[in-house]
């Protein structure tokens, strides 16, 4: 009796192991197919003398790349995706939208200071002037929302509120765009403030990117 029970257990274990092995193989095929899609898309982009971006949602990072070489990597702290079933293909940034767009200073020659002063202020468009809360609107109805990681209680509460709004509004936007026969996908990315500003600085209208979300 004990032998039969033991034999049944061994048989069951072997069946599970065999099923698991075939399953792993199927996952490997899927993972490799998606990775190959990414590489094919990257190969197309890297032929051009332009900087492109890879939003790697799996490894949580945004890579700025050119000709297959990484120029800069910006870590993503938190990522959420909604209705994201888009192919791993190059996509162009159509628009960056933010509440307060950075403004360029106009140089007024007549107002130029002539005397030397210890207090020297630079009027320039610098990284600090870039927003850290913005939306990146891509072709194919993909919207990437970038927010800074919260610092302090108020910022944390504000972030929680926005997160709630994001979750509530996504189905409504999906339904609205579905009725308008337009695709809609959304990604929420939380980054360190300076990284978010760097992304705004470098990723401008017309730039190409690939979203990798295996």
């Amino acid at each position, binding site marked *: 009796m004990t032998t039969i029970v033991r034999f049944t257990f061994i048989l069951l274990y072997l069946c599970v192991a065999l099923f698991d092995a*075939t399953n792993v*193989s*199927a996952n*490997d*095929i899927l993972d*490799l*197919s998606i*990775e*190959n899609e990414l*590489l*094919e898309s*990257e*190969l197309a982009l*890297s*032929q051009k*003398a*332009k*900087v492109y971006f890879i939003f790697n949602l799996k490894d949580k990072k945004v890579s*700025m790349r*050119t*000709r*297959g*070489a*990484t*120029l*800069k990597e910006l870590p993503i702290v938190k990522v959420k995706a*909604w*209705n994201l*079933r888009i192919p791993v293909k190059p996509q162009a940034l159509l628009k960056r939208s933010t509440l307060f767009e950075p403004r*360029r*200073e*106009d*140089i007024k*020659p*007549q107002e*130029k200071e002539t005397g030397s002063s210890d207090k020297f202020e*630079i*009027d*320039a*468009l*610098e*990284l600090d002037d*870039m927003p850290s809360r913005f939306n990146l609107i891509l072709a194919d109805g993909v919207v990437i929302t970038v927010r800074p990681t919260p610092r302090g209680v108020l910022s944390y509460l504000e972030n929680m509120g926005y997160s709630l709004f994001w979750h*509530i509004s*996504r*189905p*409504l*936007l*999906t*339904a609205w765009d*579905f009725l308008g026969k337009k695709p809609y996908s959304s990604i929420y990315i939380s980054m360190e403030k300076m990284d978010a*500003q*760097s992304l705004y*600085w*470098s990723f401008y209208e017309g730039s190409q990117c690939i979203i990798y979300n295996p």
Partner: protein
Amino acid sequence: MNKLFTKKWLLIIVIPLSIFLLAEGFGCYIAFFGHKKGSEPAVNSKGRERQLKELRSKNAALKSRVDSLSPRGINIVVDTARNVLYLKKGNRTIKEAVVSCGSGNVLEDPSGKKKWIFDTPRGEYSVKSKLINPDWIKPDWAFIEEGEAIPQDSNDRVENGVLGKYALGFGNGYFIHGTLYSRLLGRNVSHGCIRVGDKDLEELFRVTPVGTRLTII
């Protein structure tokens, strides 16, 4: 009174709430179930192994094709956001230097005919020229900015000593050059050129031949 209240309550809260919940549910349905699922072809384990092998070899080929495009020798990367220049050999950084890139300011010709935006151009370039003790041929904007009249004689445009000991030209009048304002290195203050400190510039000039790839981000 009670009836009226119930009706009002229905109108004000229940109906909009129902519409909202319906729309939410509809949106969720589309997001989670509204996609056509790709059916996985029934393949036996041998078929899968063959498929996996093919995918692996394709993966390796694609990786090597992408890698083959990346620079092998000396190349320069300039991060205009952080005002840092990276001198690289292949993908390895061999030197970092603090620089000054374009201020992004706007200057308009008083006549309103011309406008300059002082950005450092971004993209891929190459070192086109190497100059020792370069003279600055002051463009129109330099005179307009200083509130001076634009000279008719081209000799009046030449100014020496302001660009440092060396300059590397990368096209359209843009240079990597030295600066008299080394205390402003690390800030966006230039008119589009890339200003580098004396020591870093000397090394950069020494190791970069004409044709070196320059990527500005």
